[in-house]
């Protein structure tokens, strides 16, 4: 938590510094930055190809990871995001971490994805997967995945389950609880 705050503070400082340098910053934008304490306009989105994503699917640190594949253009994904956010906050002290893997189109990262993350104040870690060779990486996530989203992987060390479906909060909780022993 402290780390996160520090990170946000750095982001804010960096973004303010940048804006001041260009001397384009108006009173209004400055105020906006102050009001919106969580994420600055210039926050960096982590973007990976599948090789870069793979470590997020294979950590062996006794933590329970809930990795959700979603996109801002996917209505059922957007619908279930609040449940993942809730899970992330309510099960944080039970060693559960949610990772939201966005499959948004790269040309819309700035226009759609970043504003979405900001507007909805997403707290869970969001990373973007940009890898066009889907036929290669989809089966690596799970052999049974047809490719439709939403899809979710829940794992703890080498214990792992895959879900090509939508969740409500109760269902998500039930699944995660099976990993908490």
């Amino acid at each position, binding site marked *: 938590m402290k780390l996160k705050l520090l990170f946000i503070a750095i982001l804010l400082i960096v973004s303010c510094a940048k804006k001041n340098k260009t001397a384009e910053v108006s009173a209004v934008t400055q105020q906006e930055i102050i009001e919106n304490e*969580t994420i600055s306009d210039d926050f960096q989105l982590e973007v990976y190809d599948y090789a870069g994503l793979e470590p997020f699917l294979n950590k062996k640190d006794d933590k329970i990871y809930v990795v959700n594949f979603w996109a801002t*253009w*996917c*209505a*059922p994904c*957007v*619908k279930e*995001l*609040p449940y993942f*956010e*809730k899970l992330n*906050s309510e099960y944080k002290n039970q060693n559960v971490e949610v990772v939201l893997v966005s*499959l948004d*189109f*790269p040309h819309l990262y700035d226009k759609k994805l970043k504003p979405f993350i900001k*507007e*909805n*104040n*997403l*707290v869970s870690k969001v990373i973007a997967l940009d890898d*066009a*060779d*889907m*036929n290669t990486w*989809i*089966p690596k996530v799970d052999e049974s*995945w*047809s*490719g*439709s*989203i*939403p899809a979710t992987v829940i794992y703890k060390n080498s214990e792992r389950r895959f879900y*090509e*479906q*939508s*969740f*409500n909060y109760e*269902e998500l909780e039930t699944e995660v609880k099976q990993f908490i022993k």
Partner: protein
Amino acid sequence: MKKSVKILSAVVLLVLVSAFNVNTPISGGYQIGDIAEDFSLKNIDGKMVSMADYKDAKGFIITFTCNTCPFAVMYEDRIQALNEKYAPKGYPVIAIMPNNTDVKPGDAMPEMKKRAKEKGFTFPYLMDEEQKVYPKFGATKTPHMYVLEKTKKGNVVQYIGAIDDNHKDASAVKVKYVENAVDALLNGEEVTQKETKAIGCSIKV
């Protein structure tokens, strides 16, 4: 905490999917080598279309697609190109819109007509009104392609999956899965890559 409440209130939950629906994995459907049953679905011109109507066809390129999925939209021009290239060779494209239009009003018949006109679709754009055809195929998303070969036994499923290996950029495509499958069938050869995976929008039930 405040944040999750905010999101919760921001996202108004209109559709309640029953627990049953959510828990039942989408499975089944045709496997490679299966005979695809014919269908009779309404086209955007109001007429019913079946595979049996195509007396001279050697096979079909069936695509489950829709107006509202960005992945499907990215592939519209390539589906059109497939029809232009392969309909004269005996493999016409038949597009089927599988979504529940109560969930996705943007896929309703008037919208389908509009989209087909805008894009100048040269292939039928059918609606799976009762949502009974796509489960038989085992389609789970849009776009989802099936290449069928017409034989004496019936229309045999020869390919299931994506159109090609790059949805983002048609010019960066390295492997044209559907074209390779149809070319092989036209040459009387076996399809080498019979199944591929791709991300798509889940079909709305």
